[in-house]
Structures are given as C-alpha cells and as structure tokens.
C-alpha cells in the first residue's frame, strides 16, 4: 500500500501530499507520531507556541481486517507534561484515513488570521472550511451539525477547552453512530495544540476509498486468524453481550471498579483511602443492570447499550451507552472505568446518573475525564465543592462554558494547575499529568509505570494491573518491590500494540494465549511484508525515541518520581506505602 502523509501548514493555509520517507515506512500509530514529533519538534519549544506540531497517525493495521485494530494515535509536545505525548482512541477517523491511503496528518505553522477552520479530507482533495460559527460550541451539537453536512464522516478535533488553549483539552472523536463525541485521545492537552493552529475539526470522508492491502497476504491472514481465535476464546475479550460469558462485552472496562475496590486499591477521596463503599453503585455491573432495566421499560426507544464497538471492526466491544433511567435516552457513551473512578469514587460521588452527566460535560467541553476528576477532587480539597456532592460538582463544571469564569478556566487546565492555583499540595500527578484509577501503594508495578513512562502518570503505558490484580500471564504479587522488569516489559509491548493500531485490550487474550501473541507479530509483519517484526525490539525503539525527547526537553531522574505522600502516608485498609526504591525506578530505562 502506497500511503501518503498530508502536511497542513496553517501559516499560509496550504497542504502537501508527501511520500512517506523510507525511515517511516515500517511505522504507524504511536511509533509514527513519536518519530515525527522527535524529528521535527524542538524538545525545548513552547508546546503552545508556533513551533509545536500535532500529528495524527493511524496504526499499521488500521482499516485492515485485523480485529480491533482501528485506533488513531495523536502526538505532539504536550502542554500538560511538557514532554512528548501520544494519546490514542477508537472512533471512525483511523479506518477512514486508511481507506484514503493517508497514514498521517501533520498540522504545523502559526496562523496569521483570527478565523477558525475545519479541515475536510476526501479522496481527491483537502479543503479548509471556515468555521467561526462553530467556535465555542458544545461538541454534542457540533458533531450533529457536521454529520448533517458530511454524513458518515470521521470527526476528530478540539472542543471549547482546546480552542481556549487550556492544558487539559483532549482530542475528541465521534463514535460510529455519531451519538457522542466521547472517543477521546484525551490525555496530555493535545486539544490545546490543535487550538493553537486555529483548527476545530478534521472531517474525513472515505467515499471511493479502498481497504489497505497487506504485502504478504498469506502471513497477514494467518496472524489475523490466530488473533481472532484468541480474542474469541478468551473469557475477558470473548463471550457475548447479554450472556454469562464475556466480561468486557457485558460490563465494559468499568468491571474494574469493584475488583480494585475489593483489592483495597481504589483511590478514594483524592487518594486517602483504598476502599469506597459507593463504588458498586457506579460499577460496570450497575451500568449493565440499568441498561437491562431501561431496555425492558422503554423498548425500541431505549438507547442504553453494552457490548458496543468503539470503532468499525472491533470484536471486543467493551463500549457502552449509559441511559437516563427516566427516559431510556443516552446520557453518555461510553462511561469507562477510569472516568467513573475519577469523577465518581475519587470525589466520593456514587450516583451513577450524576457521574454520567459529569462525563457528558467533559465530552461536551472537550476535556480529559481523568485529569478533570482529579481537578474536581482538588476543588473539593480547596473547599470549593463539598465532598460527595454530585449536584454541586456538575454546577461547578458548567463554569467551564463561560470563557470569563476564572474558576472554570482553572479547572479545565487539569489537576496540577488547579492545585497550584488554589493552594492545594495534595495532587496525585507525575510530570504534570494526574493519576488514573489505581493507588500505587498496594499495587507497586503500576506505580513504577506512572513514575517512569514518558507520558506522565498513565496506566495504559504499562498496564501491570493485568498480572498484579487480574491474574494475567500467570499473575504477579502486587506488593513485590522489584517491578522494573515487569513495568518495562509492559511498556515495551504496549508501545508495539499502540504502533500496530490494535486496542490495548487484545493484551488480555494474547498474554494468556501464545497463538494470539504470534498473531500480533504475524499480522504486522505480514502487512508490512517483513519476515519478522520483533515485539520487544520495536517497542523498545519507540520508548527510546520518546525518552530521548524528554531528556532533551529537560527531564531528569527526579521527574520519574511519585509525589511524596505516596511514600509517607499509609493507605487504608491495608495500610501500605509505596516502597519501591528510586534505584528500581531508574532501572526501568537504565536496563533497557
């Protein structure tokens, strides 16, 4: 497949269709965004300045018949962490771009105008569409308007927060039915980088496009069949919605809420306790029950759903739609574990409807839910919202719509800026990015990932929870202190999966089923026409590029540390601290 790169220069509103340089030919997804950012962006540049660039890249396999491979990576220098950033999401855009033969879209330059634009990409042309009337518009309304004019298009872009250059602005994406803008490449403030380019949305229309063809069809198909078999066979990724089988299809990612709680590791009240009595009320099981109840009550009018696909070709189908219990209509889609935890548990809010509404506001104004939930917890620390008061939290979040509201603006910068502004020291963050939904005191490996990943505190970067809590790959003791090897192995494999365009959740199946792991390498190697495409080697290469960028941006070992209170303050109910040594943290990259 002869892919091209679209390079948009907003300084003069032009674009070029470029050949892919030889050195990028075997890259995709995170591998490609990180390589381009490392090659073209000065690590010391102002992330909101004219020299930063934002790169959208599909995975190597996106748009092919490899299952669950339609992820889109977005990369830039992060305004939140000030290091390199990649965030990825499902939605429609990756598979649409694949059919147009476009591997990546790079947006660079400094606008010389005050106008807002959309970029429209189709088979024959790239157009700039003036869109001032869409600026500062909620994203539910925006995607609806855009689909009326560009039906079936993939949409990604910057919402209200990104347009205002706020540091917790995500890149939104429409879901396959265009009912929600919630397919977010949320983390790290990438929406603000797009905002500096005065671009609201990228609209991709794949009419007339073709599915990409593997170079070695035979090897690709062999690998694909192994991957399909592994995903279907495994108890987590397989099964069927509405039956006893298939954890993700029935309960979604939020099936984690109860288990992390029972492990005493569910961060509650801004990381004070590891157990939340109300967790069950906002868990994946609770969403499942609500969907069943409202579907029965409202029949054909009901919009609640589990077993929903976040992108075309996903066979894991972990997404959901949370319905309003009084009408059966969509409140938000999806409600993920990290979000339910951040907006719910971490703020001690256990009302499912309120948490879903908080999620909806995040999606509408264009911010990452994890950092948003941490920022609300910070606002609660500062006495601006009572703990556990969902109604008050919703009202507070709505301040984000008003550009003149200082508190709303501070909130939309994320937890670190909120803490600095409101005088709250207790902010769970690394490199400026707030913690996800696992307390690192009782689960040490995930703490090693938070500390050392190039991304700032991020669970997906090296998801050691799989062995430490969920028993994947034979299991691992969560209290063990030597976790550098485990975290490194997961960080490396993750980078490879991200580059391939696969959803990270394939890991649950392929960690347990050896054939599935073979399928991972064979699909990638087959598509690229290589005999082999070694997982650890390629994964490590991506991590080294990112690490080097961060080093040149000014990061040192001291940036690979958790906030002090995780070492000093015992977390009930197990009363443990984060006891991994600094030497062990440093060993993640020193021994790579």
């Amino acid at each position, binding site marked *: 497949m002869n892919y091209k790169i679209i390079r948009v220069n907003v300084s003069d509103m032009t674009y070029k269709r470029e050949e892919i340089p030889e050195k990028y030919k075997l890259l995709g997804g995170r591998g490609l965004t990180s390589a381009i950012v490392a090659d073209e962006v000065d690590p010391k540049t102002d992330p909101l300045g004219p020299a930063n660039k934002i790169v959208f890249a599909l995975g190597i396999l996106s748009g092919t018949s490899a299952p669950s491979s339609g992820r889109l990576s977005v990369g830039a220098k992060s305004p939140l962490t000030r290091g390199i950033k990649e965030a990825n999401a499902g939605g429609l855009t990756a598979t649409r771009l694949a059919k147009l033969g476009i591997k990546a879209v790079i947006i660079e330059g400094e606008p010389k105008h005050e106008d807002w634009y959309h970029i429209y990409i189709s088979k024959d042309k790239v157009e700039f569409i003036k869109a001032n009337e869409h600026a500062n518009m909620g994203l539910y309304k925006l995607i609806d308007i855009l689909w009326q004019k560009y039906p079936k298009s993939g949409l990604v872009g910057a919402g209200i927060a990104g347009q205002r250059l706020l540091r917790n602005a995500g890149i939104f994406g429409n879901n396959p039915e265009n009912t929600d803008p919630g397919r977010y490449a949320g983390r790290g403030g990438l929406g603000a980088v797009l905002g500096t380019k005065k671009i609201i949305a990228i609209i991709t229309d794949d009419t007339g496009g073709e599915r990409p063809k593997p170079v070695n069809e035979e090897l690709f198909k062999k690998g694909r069949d192994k991957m399909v078999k592994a995903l279907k066979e495994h108890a987590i990724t397989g099964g069927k919605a509405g039956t006893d089988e298939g954890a993700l299809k029935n309960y979604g990612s939020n099936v984690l809420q*109860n288990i992390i709680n029972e492990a005493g590791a569910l961060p509650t009240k801004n990381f004070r306790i590891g157990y939340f009595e109300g967790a069950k009320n906002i*868990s994946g099981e609770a969403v499942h029950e609500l969907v069943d109840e409202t579907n029965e009550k409202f029949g054909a009018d009901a919009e609640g759903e589990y077993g929903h696909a976040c992108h075309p070709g996903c066979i894991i189908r972990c997404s959901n739609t949370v319905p309003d219990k009084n009408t059966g209509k969509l409140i938000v889609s999806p409600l993920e574990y990290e979000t339910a935890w951040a907006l719910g548990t971490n703020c001690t809010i256990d009302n499912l409807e309120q948490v879903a509404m908080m999620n909806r506001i995040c999606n509408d104004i264009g911010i990452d839910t994890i950092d948003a939930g941490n920022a609300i917890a910070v606002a609660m620390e500062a006495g601006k919202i009572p703990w556990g008061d969902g109604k008050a939290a919703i009202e507070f979040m709505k301040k984000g719509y008003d550009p003149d509201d200082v508190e709303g603006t501070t909130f939309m910068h994320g937890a670190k800026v909120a803490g600095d502004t409101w005088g709250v020291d207790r902010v769970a963050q690394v490199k400026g990015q707030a913690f996800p939904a696992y307390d690192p005191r009782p689960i040490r490996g995930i703490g090693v990932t938070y500390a050392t990943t190039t991304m700032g505190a991020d669970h997906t970067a090296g998801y050691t929870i799989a062995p430490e809590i969920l028993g994947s790959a034979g299991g691992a003791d969560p209290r063990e202190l030597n976790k550098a090897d485990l975290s490194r192995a997961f960080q490396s494999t993750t980078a490879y999966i991200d580059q391939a365009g696969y959803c990270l959740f394939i890991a649950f199946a392929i960690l347990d089923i050896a054939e599935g792991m073979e399928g991972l390498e064979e699909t990638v190697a087959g598509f690229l026409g290589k005999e082999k495409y070694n997982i650890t080697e390629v994964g490590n290469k991506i991590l080294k590029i990112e690490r080097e960028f961060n080093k040149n941006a000014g990061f040192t070992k001291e940036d690979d540390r958790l906030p002090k209170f995780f070492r000093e303050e015992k977390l009930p109910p197990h009363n443990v601290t984060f006891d991994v040594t600094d030497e062990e943290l440093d060993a993640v990259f020193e021994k790579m």
Partner: protein
Amino acid sequence: MNIRLKMYASLRKHLPGTEIGEEVKIEVEQDSTIMDILDRYTIEESLAKIIFVNGIHKTVEYVLEENDLLVIFPPIGGG
C-alpha cells in the same frame, strides 16, 4: 463457623436476590477451603479466576478462618 462472601459480575447469579457487592454471611465447617465453597455453589475452578480473602489474593487451597471476607470474581479485565 461463619464467613462473609461476595461474588461479582457473572458469578453473582450464585447469590440470588443479592444487590451488587452485597455481603452474605454463610456457615461453613471448620477447616473449609475456598475449593469447598466453590463446590458448594458448583462453580468451576476456572471461573473463580480472582479470589481475595480480606483483600489479599488467595488460591483455592486456602483454609478459611472465622469471619473471613471471601470475594470471588470470574475472569475479568478492563481499565
């Protein structure tokens, strides 16, 4: 002796009538193992993928003690 029991996700059907996360007090014989409890509810061992006793991972051979909180999950993943 008595222990406390919770089951989640697809295993909750073995505790009919309970709410999500509801704890059930059950009487068991002295020196019962977790395997004995699985047998009692006819739960295949492979479906009891993640087992906590008082918040700590245990295997099916574990011998239960008075008032232990036993929590059983099927194979699940997410995050």
